[in-house]
C-alpha cells in the first residue's frame, strides 16, 4: 500500500516535491499545506509583476484544477501548529488533524531584515511575496519621490528595475564596492553598473545603512560615517533567512537551515526537508535550479529509491529588460579567459581550475550560455578556455549536448525537450512547453526551446510557417520566385506557382510580399487586398467604415479640427472618438461617402485600417513639459513623415517619449523612442494587447538623428523578414534580440536596409487621393442606383480644402 505524505510549504519547493512524487507514485496520498492563501506561485517571476503590474495570479505554478486532477489535497491558508513524529500526526491552526507516514518540510525562507533602527517604519518593505510587490509598485507609481533599495544582489537589482519602470527615481545602496559580488567578478560588475545607470538606476557603493530615518514614515537612510540619503520608499533585499521555526519545534537538527543528508533526510526518520529551508553539506541554496534537483531526490527517497543530491552549481540570470546577464559557478578560477568590449557593454568569461570549467559569466552577449553553463555544471575538462568561449558564441542551442539544462526554472534538459518531440508526439514548441514545463517559468529560455523543438521536429510536423499552406510555399520560396522570375503581381505568382487560388486566405500576404520585394513598383491588384486596403478605411461590424486622418505626432490645428467637425456634421457621422494612438476616429461612415469625406477633410490617410506604419504617439517633450529631456513631438513628426505610407507585415504602432516618465507609452509600442539623459533609447517589440511586453532596447544613442536611423533600420529589417501578420513582439523573439541588434547596428547592412526603405518609400502615395483617381469606377459603390441611398451622394469632389500637406 502506498504511503501518505504531507508536504508543509506551498512554495516552488513544496510544489516541486509534490510533482516529482506524483510522477514516481501514482497512488501516494499527498497533502500540500500552504500558509499563503493562494496556490503555489513562481516567486522567481515576482520582479516581472513589479514591472508590469500584472495580477500575481498569473504567477501560479499550476492551475487550480491541477491539484484535483492529480489527486493532491491542497490546504490553503493553513499553518501547522504541532507535529508528533512518533505517531505520524500533525495539527493545523484550525484544529484539524492530519496523519502521515512521511513528512516533507519545505518551509522556505524569510527576507532578512537587518536589526537597524526604523526597519519597522511604514514605507519600508522586503521584496519577497506578492503583497510586498503590490505595496512597492503602488508606492513607486503613486507619488514616492525617491526609492532606495538596500542590497545590490540579483533580487535587489530586479526590484530597482521594477521601481524605475514606474518612473520613480531609485538608488541601490550596496555594502560592498561591486554589485552581485557572489556571482560576478570585478570586471563584469564594473560594466553592469553603467548598464543599470542607463536604465535610470543610480548606485551607491560602500554604503553601510545604520538606520532608516522616520519619524512616522520612512524619509531617508542614515549611513555609517554620517551621510544621509532622502528616500520615502525603502526596499530591503539583503538576503534570506531559512524558515526553521517548525523544524526546531519538532526537534529536527538545525544549523542555519534544516540539516539534511544527501537523500534529503533530516535527523528524524521519516522527515525530509527541501528547498531554501534546507542546509545541505553546509550550504543553503536560494536559487531555483537546486530546488528542483533536491525535490527529485526527495521524491525518490520518499518511495524508498536510493538517490543522492550532491549539491548544485549555482547559476543565475538577471531578469532586467535591456541587460543580458547569465552566470554560473565560481566567479574566479586559477585560469581565466575573458573577452570584453567595454564600449558595447560585453563581458564574457570562462573560469577554470585544474583544467576543468568552474565558472562562467556572460554579460551583454549571452550567446552559447546553455553550453557554457552545462560545461560548468559538469566540470568539463577543457584545454583552451578562450577557444571554448569563441565556439560558444557561435553555437546555437541545437549544438548542445542532451544533458544541457535549458530551463533552469523547471530543470528541463535538452534531452527532455527532444524526447517530448521524438517520443511524446509533440510537434510544436507550445505543446512541448506544456508537457515539459520548459519556458513556463521566467521565460528567458523560450527562444532556445523553440529552436531546439524546431530542430528536433525536423521536416516532420513542425512545418515552417507557410505563406500559402495549401501549396506549402514559404515566404522565402515565393520571394525567390518573384525576384528570379520577375513576377509583377499577385496573379503572376498565382499563375506561376498556384499560390492563393484554392482557399484565398493568403492573398493579402502575397500582395504584401509582391509589393515589398518589388519596392512598391509592382502591379497592384486590389482583389488580393483585404477590404480595408481596397477602400482605405477600417470595416466595422455593421459593414460601415471608420476614418482616421493622419495627424503627425498627434498634433493638430484649429483648422483641421474645424474640418473634422464639419465632416462629422455633414455626413451624420454617428461617433467621433479619440483613439489610443492620439488620433481622431470618425466611425460609422458609409463606404460610398468615403471619397467625399476625404476631400472635405483635406488630410492624408492615417493608415489606421492597414498593416502599415500607423501612428506615432508622442508626449509634449521639451516643447512645454518641464520634465522633458528630448523633443518628442519634433522627432515623432519627423519619424511619422519618414515612414508614412509604408506597408508592413503587421501594423506598426510607434511612440516617442521625451523623458523616462514615458507619457507616450513608447515602451509598449512596436517601435518606441525614449529620451534619456544624454540621448535616446531605441526600443522595439513592445506590446499592450492580450499580452503586455516591454519593448526590447535595440540601442541607446546620443543624437536624435541616430535614434531615427536605428529605428528606421529596424523597421526595414522587419518589413523584409517578418512573416505576414507577425507583430514585432513575436518577430524579435523568433529572430533573437542579439541577432537583430547585430544586424540593425551594423553600419554597412544598416545603410543598405535604409536605402531599400527609401526606395520603397519613394513609390508610396496617399491612398486617399484615389478619391480623384479610383482603380475602378465602383471602387466605393455597390450596384444599386445612388437614389436608393439614404442621402444623395455629394455632387462636388474637389481638391483638398487645406491645400498641400
Amino acid at each position: 500500500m502506498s504511503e501518505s505524505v504531507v508536504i508543509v510549504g506551498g512554495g516552488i519547493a513544496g510544489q516541486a516535491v509534490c510533482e516529482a512524487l506524483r510522477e514516481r507514485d501514482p497512488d501516494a496520498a499527498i497533502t500540500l499545506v500552504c500558509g499563503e492563501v493562494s496556490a503555489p506561485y513562481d516567486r522567481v517571476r515576482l520582479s516581472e509583476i513589479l514591472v508590469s503590474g500584472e495580477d500575481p495570479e498569473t504567477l501560479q505554478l499550476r492551475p487550480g484544477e491541477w491539484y484535483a486532477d492529480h489527486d493532491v489535497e491542497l490546504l490553503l491558508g493553513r499553518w501547522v501548529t504541532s507535529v508528533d513524529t512518533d505517531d505520524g500526526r500533525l495539527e493545523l491552526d484550525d484544529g484539524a488533524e492530519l496523519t502521515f507516514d512521511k513528512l516533507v518540510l519545505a518551509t522556505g525562507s524569510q527576507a532578512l531584515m537587518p536589526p537597524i533602527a526604523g526597519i519597522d517604519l511604514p514605507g519600508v518593505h522586503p521584496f519577497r511575496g506578492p503583497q510586498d510587490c503590490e505595496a512597492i509598485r503602488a508606492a513607486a507609481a503613486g507619488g514616492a519621490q525617491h526609492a532606495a533599495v538596500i542590497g545590490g544582489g540579483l533580487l535587489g537589482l530586479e526590484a530597482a528595475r521594477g521601481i524605475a519602470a514606474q518612473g520613480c527615481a531609485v538608488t541601490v545602496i550596496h555594502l560592498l564596492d561591486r554589485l552581485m559580488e557572489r556571482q560576478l567578478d570585478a570586471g563584469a560588475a564594473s560594466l553592469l553598473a553603467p548598464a543599470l545607470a542607463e536604465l535610470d538606476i543610480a548606485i551607491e557603493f560602500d554604503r553601510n545603512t545604520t538606520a532608516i530615518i522616520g519619524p512616522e514614515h520612512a524619509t531617508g537612510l542614515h549611513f555609517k560615517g554620517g551621510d544621509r540619503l532622502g528616500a520615502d520608499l525603502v526596499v530591503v533585499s539583503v538576503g534570506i533567512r531559512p524558515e526553521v521555526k517548525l523544524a526546531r519545534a519538532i526537534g529536527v537538527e538545525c544549523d542555519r537551515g534544516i540539516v539534511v543528508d544527501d537523500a534529503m533526510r533530516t535527523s528524524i526518520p521519516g522527515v525530509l526537508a527541501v528547498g531554501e529551508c534546507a542546509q545541505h553539506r553546509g550550504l543553503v541554496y536560494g536559487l531555483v535550479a537546486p530546488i528542483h534537483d533536491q525535490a527529485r531526490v526527495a521524491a525518490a527517497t520518499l518511495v524508498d529509491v536510493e538517490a543522492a543530491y550532491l549539491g548544485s552549481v549555482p547559476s543565475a540570470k538577471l531578469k532586467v529588460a535591456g541587460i543580458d546577464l547569465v552566470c554560473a559557478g565560481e566567479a574566479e578560477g586559477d585560469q581565466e579567459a575573458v573577452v570584453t568590449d567595454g564600449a558595447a557593454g560585453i563581458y564574457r568569461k570562462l573560469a577554470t581550475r585544474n583544467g576543468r570549467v568552474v565558472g562562467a559569466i556572460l554579460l551583454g552577449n549571452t550567446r552559447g550560455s546553455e553550453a557554457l553553463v552545462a560545461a560548468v555544471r559538469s566540470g568539463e575538462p577543457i584545454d583552451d578556455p578562450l577557444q571554448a568561449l569563441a565556439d560558444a558564441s557561435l553555437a546555437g542551442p541545437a549544438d548542445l549536448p542532451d544533458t544541457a539544462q535549458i530551463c533552469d526554472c523547471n530543470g528541463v534538459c535538452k534531452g527532455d525537450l527532444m524526447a517530448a518531440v521524438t517520443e511524446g508526439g509533440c510537434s510544436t514548441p507550445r505543446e512541448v512547453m506544456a508537457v515539459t514545463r520548459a519556458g513556463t517559468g521566467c521565460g528567458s529560455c523560450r527562444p532556445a526551446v523553440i529552436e531546439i523543438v524546431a530542430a528536433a521536429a525536423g521536416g516532420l510536423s513542425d512545418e515552417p510557417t507557410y505563406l500559402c499552406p495549401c501549396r506549402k510555399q514559404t515566404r522565402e520560396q515565393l520571394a525567390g520566385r518573384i525576384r528570379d522570375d520577375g513576377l509583377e503581381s499577385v496573379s503572376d505568382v498565382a499563375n506561376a506557382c498556384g499560390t492563393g487560388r484554392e482557399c484565398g486566405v493568403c492573398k493579402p500576404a502575397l500582395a504584401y510580399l509582391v509589393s515589398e520585394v518589388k519596392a512598391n513598383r509592382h502591379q497592384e491588384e486590389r482583389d488580393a487586398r483585404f477590404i480595408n486596403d481596397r477602400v482605405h478605411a477600417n470595416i466595422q461590424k455593421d459593414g460601415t467604415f471608420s476614418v482616421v486622418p493622419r495627424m503627425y505626432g498627434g498634433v493638430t490645428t484649429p483648422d483641421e479640427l474645424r474640418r473634422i467637425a464639419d465632416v462629422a456634421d455633414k455626413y451624420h457621422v454617428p461617433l467621433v472618438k479619440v483613439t489610443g494612438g492620439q488620433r481622431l476616429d470618425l466611425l460609422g461612415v458609409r463606404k460610398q461617402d468615403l471619397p467625399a469625406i476625404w476631400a472635405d477633410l483635406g488630410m492624408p490617410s492615417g493608415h489606421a485600417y492597414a498593416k502599415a506604419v500607423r501612428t506615432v504617439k508622442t508626449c509634449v517633450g521639451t516643447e512645454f513639459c518641464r520634465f522633458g529631456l528630448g523633443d518628442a513631438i519634433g522627432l515623432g513628426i519627423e519619424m511619422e513623415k519618414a515612414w508614412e505610407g509604408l506597408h508592413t507585415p503587421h501594423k506598426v504602432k510607434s511612440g516617442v517619449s521625451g523623458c523616462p516618465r514615458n507619457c507616450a507609452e513608447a515602451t509598449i509600442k512596436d517601435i518606441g523612442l525614449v529620451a534619456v539623459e544624454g540621448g535616446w533609447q531605441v526600443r522595439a517589440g513592445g506590446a499592450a494587447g492580450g499580452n503586455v511586453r516591454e519593448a526590447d532596447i535595440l540601442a541607446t544613442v546620443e543624437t536624435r538623428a541616430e535614434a531615427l536611423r536605428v529605428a528606421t533600420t529596424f523597421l526595414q529589417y522587419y518589413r523584409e523578414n517578418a512573416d505576414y501578420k507577425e507583430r514585432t513582439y513575436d518577430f524579435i523573439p523568433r529572430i533573437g534580440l542579439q541577432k537583430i541588434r547585430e544586424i540593425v547596428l551594423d553600419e554597412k547592412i544598416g545603410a543598405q536596409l535604409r536605402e531599400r526603405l527609401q526606395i520603397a518609400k519613394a513609390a508610396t502615395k496617399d491612398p486617399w487621393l484615389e478619391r480623384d483617381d479610383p482603380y475602378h469606377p465602383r471602387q466605393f459603390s455597390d450596384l444599386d442606383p445612388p437614389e436608393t441611398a439614404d442621402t444623395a451622394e455629394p455632387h462636388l469632389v474637389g481638391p483638398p480644402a487645406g491645400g498641400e500637406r
Partner: protein
Amino acid sequence: MTYACRIDDVPLGEGRVVTLDGQRIAVFRAAGGWYALDAACPHMGGPLADGIVCDRAVICPLHDRRYDLQTGEPLGAGDPVAVHAVEVRGDQVFVRVSTREAVAA
C-alpha cells in the same frame, strides 16, 4: 432571371451588392466565373461582397468565415449561405433569386 449589372460594374476578383426582388444579393466576378450569394454572412451579417474571393470561395471580411461560391456551403464552421443562379448574356449579368423556402429545404 433578373438583370443585376453589367460585366464591367464588378472588378475582377471582387463582389458587389445589388438589391433584387427586395433581397440583398452579393454578385461575385471570380476567376472561375460569376456567382451570387445572399449578401449577409449567416454568421454575424458581415458583407460577403467585401470579402476576398478566390477560384471557388469567398471569405467574410468580419470573422473569416469561408463559403463555397457554387454551393454556399461553409468551408469550416457555420451555416450555409443561400446561392442564386447567375447567367451572363453578352455584357449583362442576370440572377435568378432563390426563394427563402427553397434555401431552407
